């Protein structure tokens, strides 16, 4: 099958194209070079005046696994009010907005031109579940970031001075056994400390039992990820999420990395200062400045948008703190398998609330003050800040200053005074949106054949009409191709496609396996044989897509 996308404006930052008019050719599931004058395409689309980009990639979206399913159960009312029939193309029915069911998740993403989304908090103990669920999401590529840093085994390695090499081997072993793409740390050591009844844990506070500080968890993991040569730097959900004044901790966390690459996630929730009568203000300017001058750092925002959602996180410590604010007033918490935990708290962000209004403004402030779109990613930390379906609205806020100022005028009247948002004139360009949602995500995750339009890349392509209303433009692409197949036309599903699961496999010294096996037998009551996820378990036998790691040494 040869397809010609004729005469569109290509926004393909990886290959230095910023709106140049060119033809794009797809052969089967790949983008291919112009086959020359003799070739007759099986299908031709006249894209004169249209905007053409690679399929968008969401690097941080809670789409699968135990906590998402628990959130679905807790959000029963929402699901009852939002039920969807299947589509004739084979996409099944489902329900939900903030915690959509699997087919609904795939459908909503592909309808917006996203062809990949990554689950950023996969617990080792729950990995098999997360993979089964990801395999049931049609249309999009997926992968999981393995949560480490509160697992008793790692803390024991650190506490007993097992050494960096042993830690690297353990991390590599776990990535392999759980079929993961990256490593995430959530409230380093904090979820573990909470199991010993610590309700807070600061960056330099030794945790209970092991006496290990969050700083040391963070640094050994950042170093392990670097030395193993994983494409994606350590994905960090820091300490003190949501606590006023936490911007100081966040700045300290940047220091703690001491030059090692690090991705700080949903930094909006970690950018709070304590100025003003309410002791709650924006710390965005200071944080943006620190990120701007640290080229080894990347961030995603975790933008808050107004409305009902649900927060689902492995950070039981933080979730227990916010549980009294639950709306509706119900929540759940879980300690999990000497591994981590999960907390699910429904939440309604209101523009009439000073705190929520400021959270909204802080997120936008960060987007606009961070000057390198290659190091900042479009996320709402779905569903924690808002469902991912708010991305088109968020893009409009970034690209349209007048619209942004109009919205700023609607929020709690005291909030604007505590942010710099009103004075920022920047508007994102289409090229910058293409960087932030395509080129940069593929680069930061090491997905060499995704997120761009050069020959050989996966034929994941989205075509938009260039409308001044950027929300309308990004909400409803004209055409979406997944692996070369046209799956969305004018916002409607027209065919079925399946994505793949991306993993890394850095290799390790298997001597570590004896210590791990003892831990599994004595503590977890499960042998390694039953824990390991085999390739044939991924996507009903299709297996994962492997991405190379390149071992490095810290200078």
């Amino acid at each position: 099958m040869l397809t010609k996308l004729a005469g569109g404006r290509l926004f393909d930052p990886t290959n230095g194209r910023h709106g140049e008019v060119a033809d794009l050719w797809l052969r089967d599931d790949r983008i291919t070079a112009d086959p020359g004058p003799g070739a007759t395409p099986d299908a031709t689309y006249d894209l004169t005046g249209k905007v053409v980009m690679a399929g968008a990639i969401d690097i941080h979206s809670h789409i699968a696994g135990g906590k998402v399913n628990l959130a679905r159960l807790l959000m029963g009312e929402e699901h009852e009010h939002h039920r969807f029939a299947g589509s004739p193309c084979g996409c099944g029915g489902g329900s939900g907005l903030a915690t959509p069911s699997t087919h609904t998740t795939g459908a909503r993403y592909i309808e917006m031109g996203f062809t990949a989304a990554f689950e950023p908090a996969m617990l080792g103990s729950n990995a098999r579940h997360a993979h089964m669920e990801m395999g049931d999401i049609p249309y999009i590529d997926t992968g999981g970031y393995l949560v480490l840093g509160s697992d008793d085994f790692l803390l024991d390695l650190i506490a007993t001075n097992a050494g960096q090499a042993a830690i690297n081997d353990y991390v590599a072993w776990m990535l392999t056994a759980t079929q993961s793409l990256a490593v995430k740390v959530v409230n380093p050591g904090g979820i573990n400390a909470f199991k010993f009844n610590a309700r807070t844990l600061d960056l330099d506070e030794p945790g209970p039992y092991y006496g290990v500080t969050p700083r040391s968890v963070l640094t050994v993991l950042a170093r392990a990820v670097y030395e193993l040569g994983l494409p994606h730097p350590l994905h960090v959900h820091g300490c003190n999420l949501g606590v006023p004044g936490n911007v100081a901790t966040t700045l300290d966390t940047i220091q703690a990395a001491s030059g090692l690459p690090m991705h700080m996630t949903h930094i909006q929730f970690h950018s709070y200062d304590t100025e003003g009568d309410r002791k709650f203000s924006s710390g965005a300017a200071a944080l943006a400045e620190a990120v701007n001058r640290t080229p080894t750092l990347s961030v995603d925002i975790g933008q808050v948008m107004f409305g009902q959602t649900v927060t689902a996180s492995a950070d039981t410590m933080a979730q227990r703190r916010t549980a009294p604010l639950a709306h509706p007033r119900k929540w759940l918490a879980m300690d999990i398998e000497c591994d981590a935990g999960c907390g699910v708290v429904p939440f309604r962000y209101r523009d009439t609330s000073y705190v929520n209004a400021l959270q909204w403004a802080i997120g936008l402030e960060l987007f606009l003050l961070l000057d390198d779109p290659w190091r900042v990613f479009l996320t709402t930390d779905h569903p924690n800040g808002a469902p991912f379906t708010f991305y088109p609205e968020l893009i409009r806020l970034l690209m349209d200053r007048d619209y942004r100022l109009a919205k700023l005028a609607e929020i709690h009247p005291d909030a604007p005074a505590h942010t710099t948002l009103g004075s920022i004139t920047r508007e994102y360009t289409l090229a910058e949106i293409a960087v932030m949602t395509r080129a940069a995500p593929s680069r930061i995750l090491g997905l060499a054949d995704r997120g761009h339009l050069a020959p050989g890349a996966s034929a994941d392509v989205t075509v938009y009409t260039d409308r001044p209303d950027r929300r309308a433009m990004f909400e409803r692409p004209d055409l979406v191709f997944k692996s070369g197949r046209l799956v969305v036309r004018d916002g409607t599903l027209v065919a079925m496609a399946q994505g793949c699961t991306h993993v890394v496999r850095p290799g390790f010294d298997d001597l570590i396996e004896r210590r791990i096996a003892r831990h599994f037998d004595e503590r977890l009551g499960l042998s390694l044989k039953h824990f390991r996820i085999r390739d044939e378990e991924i996507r009903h036998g299709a297996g994962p897509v492997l991405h190379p790691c390149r071992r490095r040494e810290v200078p």
Partner: protein
Amino acid sequence: MTFHPEILCPFCGLGCGDIGIDQDDSGIAPRPSGCPQADRLFRRPMAVATDARMAGTQVPMDQAVAEAARLLGAARAPLIAGLAADVDGVLAALTLAARIGATVDHERSDALFRNLAVLRRFGWSVTTLAELRNRSDLVLVVGPDPAAAFPRLWERWVAPPPAFVPGGGRSVVFLGGEPLPETVQCLAGQIETRGMETDPQPDLATLVTRLRTALAGRGAAEDPRMAELAARLRAARYAVVVWAAGLFDGPQPDLIVEALVRLVRTVDGTTRCAGLPLSGADNLIGANQACTWRTGFPLRTGFEAGAPFHDPDRFDWRSRLRDADVTLWISAFRPEEPEFSTGGSVIMLAPPETAITAEPALFIPVGTPGIDHAGDVFRADSVVALHAGALIDRGLPSVADVIGRMLVALEQSADAREKAGC
């Protein structure tokens, strides 16, 4: 004779991975595991009838599948129940349910819904088996001994010394239920406090209320033993409250569950305390997880014009059975005849060695996950999913295979109707 060590058991929901299985030409047999369920259910003969039966007469599989598709396609009120299958089997059943507008429910969902009712209206605070094993210094068992449904619960998850408890001491307190003799033997001196009940038939709800009253600091003088238990909960580092709601008697068992979650939260405010609601034989939890991720709703969900619709009362399989005209009953784990009766037609997917007294309209033999084919099952604490491998090949298809073929047959007949212009 071949020996298979470290075999994963998919039956009760504890996910024991240490079963030894002997295999010879006649079939497989487990070495004594300490679990009556594993000892019974892993014993399978090699020689079984692999033919399907239509009203008791053997028919080729193709014919049985075509007839099943015809019956299900024409059904006005189809029901898919039993639903005892691995995750792939359940997902196939959900695809079929959406296609024909059936409701789905698991045979053993009663216990689950007592817990889910509370999760959905109030939330919960719970833990998992490895946390119980390593962190708990006090285990409060509410109601009948869960070992009745989870035979090796105490041996595997409570008898080993807790790793994170200084000194390794752990007490197990039964409230409103007696430990089984095997439990007493297994836990030896750890069972400390008994006799909280003042009458021989204790009312569980009342006992839990008395404990919550004591936790609130009231009535210590009248109820000193409960006050003492409350004090021990508050003094524990990590107390785990264990219950198997399926074993609760009484008119509104979900109210007991809610009281327990509230109790857990009271204690958890100052020290650590978590619940451990156990339910989950025959991959009940996996069926519920798959139904939740696929539809957004738990079991007891149907489809209205292709969109899922949940009703925990109306779509209980026992109620639906009354007006279902066709029931697809799935029971892949146990060669035991299910107990139900219906006026409608029954298509049964079950192991061939199942002795059937009332022959259904169609009987289609299927393999057991973890014996005849690999399959995923969830543990009773809902987090850990396990992949049970294949042990023997008796030529039996999986539930997912059979339903997949029914879906193909349904598509073909729909295409044929379209071509014929009807």
